[in-house]
């Protein structure tokens, strides 16, 4: 059984998910997550000791292909055309290191 989900925990998870949330939102989310997680606690009723987890429903072998560049797909120019900001053929983002 999980402890109550604290506002701090929610803030931490939001940071991991790269979401900015306000104090108010964190409180509301804590409640909502708590209620969903509480519902999910029913899974602990089931004994799954010797049960293999299912990650994929259809049996699949490794799917391999040659790692070859394809020139018939998209050009550099096309790859940049939906970008919010770009310069000299590259995506431009704000600085990572503070000055």
């Amino acid at each position, binding site marked *: 059984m999980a402890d109550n989900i604290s506002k701090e925990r929610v803030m931490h998870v939001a940071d991991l998910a790269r979401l900015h949330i306000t104090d108010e939102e964190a409180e509301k989310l804590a409640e909502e997550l708590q209620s969903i997680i509480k519902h999910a606690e029913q899974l602990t009723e089931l004994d799954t000791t010797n049960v293999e*987890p299912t990650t994929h429903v259809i049996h699949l072998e490794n799917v391999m292909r040659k790692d070859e560049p394809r020139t018939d797909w998209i050009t550099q120019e096309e790859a940049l055309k939906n970008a919010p900001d770009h310069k000299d053929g590259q995506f431009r983002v*704000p600085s990572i290191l503070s000055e």
Partner: protein
Amino acid sequence: MSLFDHSIKELEEKLHNKEISVQDLVKASFDRIKEVDDEIQAFITLDEENAMKQAKELDESSEEKSLFGLPIGLKDNIVTKGLRTTSGSKILDNFNDPLYDAEVVEKLKEQKTITIGKLNMDEFAMGSGTEYSAYKKTKNPWDTDRVPGGSSGGSAAAVAAGEVMFALGSDTGGSIRQPAAFCGVVGMKPTYGRVSRFGLVAFASSLDQIGPITRTVEDNARVLEVIAGHDEKDSTSANLEVPEFTDALTNDVKGLKIAVPKEYLGEGVTQEVKDAVKAAVEKYESLGATCEEVSLPHSKYALSTYYILASAEASASLARFDGVRYGVRAENVEDMIDMYKRSRSEGFGEEVKRRIMLGTFALSSGYYDAYYKKAQKVRTLIKNDFEKIFEEYDVILGPTAPTTAFKLGEEINDPLTIYANDILTIPVNLAGVPAISVPCGVSSEGLPIGLQIIGKHFDEVNVYRVAHAFEQATDFHKQRPDIGGAAK
């Protein structure tokens, strides 16, 4: 002319005999959209100029192909080259010029279908009423105070209102079948792996499938014949030959064994829905099939399992929306991390953020084994339930949704209540099996009821066979919502 009045096959014959032109068809589609879509609000984006131009070109050619020249709609999470694709989200509001077509779109283009526009949906396909779209609320053509279902609500409503000949939707936990049921049309979720997911904006990659929404079972089988098949660009697509699904429409279900799980007619399912499904069971018996009650004992765990797994996968799938390569970037940001956080927080709606949070929580250190891994194990138990039944039976029968369409705004305040609407469709995605929803009744309030037919992995043939036999023996698929002028 009205698109309502004809099957795909009939339209193909009329085109062949030059009784109608492709331009007539495309014009009929846009005329109907002008007549009803102010009210229905099914489309996010229309592509009229381009569609009319293509229609003219097709009329000048003399090609004959399956689905040739038909006006169609695509759910807005199916990527279309050069045509805006929003996935119902503000974060893709400016995604006006996608670089490629989804594999299903390529296949449809080879047949020369004409894309009329992109259809409304819950943001990133997360929802059951299309109310979580960042753009508009689509109305149910049968009662415009009610939702069309979701998340493929725009697709189901557009087909039900006769705005397009057919539409594609996507189904992660019921998002094709439930809106098909709510709108009185036919919706198929194929076996996981049957249709390429290349170019489908990912929600939960181990559950997502694209499928057709149509007015009849035959139309549906014809569309799936075109969009199914192996694709090297989707490593989870099955390398299997695609059967001629229309060959299965023989009207013969004699000797077939049909399982009716008691859990699908239990608590939470309204009496009217139960009665309609029981009447369908009797109909099948009169057609020579054998129907027996069975149990899928882990059904009640499906909802929790689904919300853990789907949200966990979604939290990973949606990590790509970062304001760097495409989509909306927040303004006046401090640094890189601030840019990620503000772009995502401003771009995503409340429900999407809730699921990202739930998924990230379930995957976070200390909780991974307790929730995520546990849910994956329970998924195995749910899948085993189905496999056991299919050792003895050909298909499983039940309702598609526990209720008929709910009112706009009715359930939106409580996530758990709204999630419970998917309780009969979710187990199918967890098991990866195919399932269809076909109309099987109309409630006292005049709302359609859907019958769900579930098959074995890659046995869409029997699903279509069983669905078609019921359709041919009943008149539910002939009923039309009373909206606009031509819908009778």
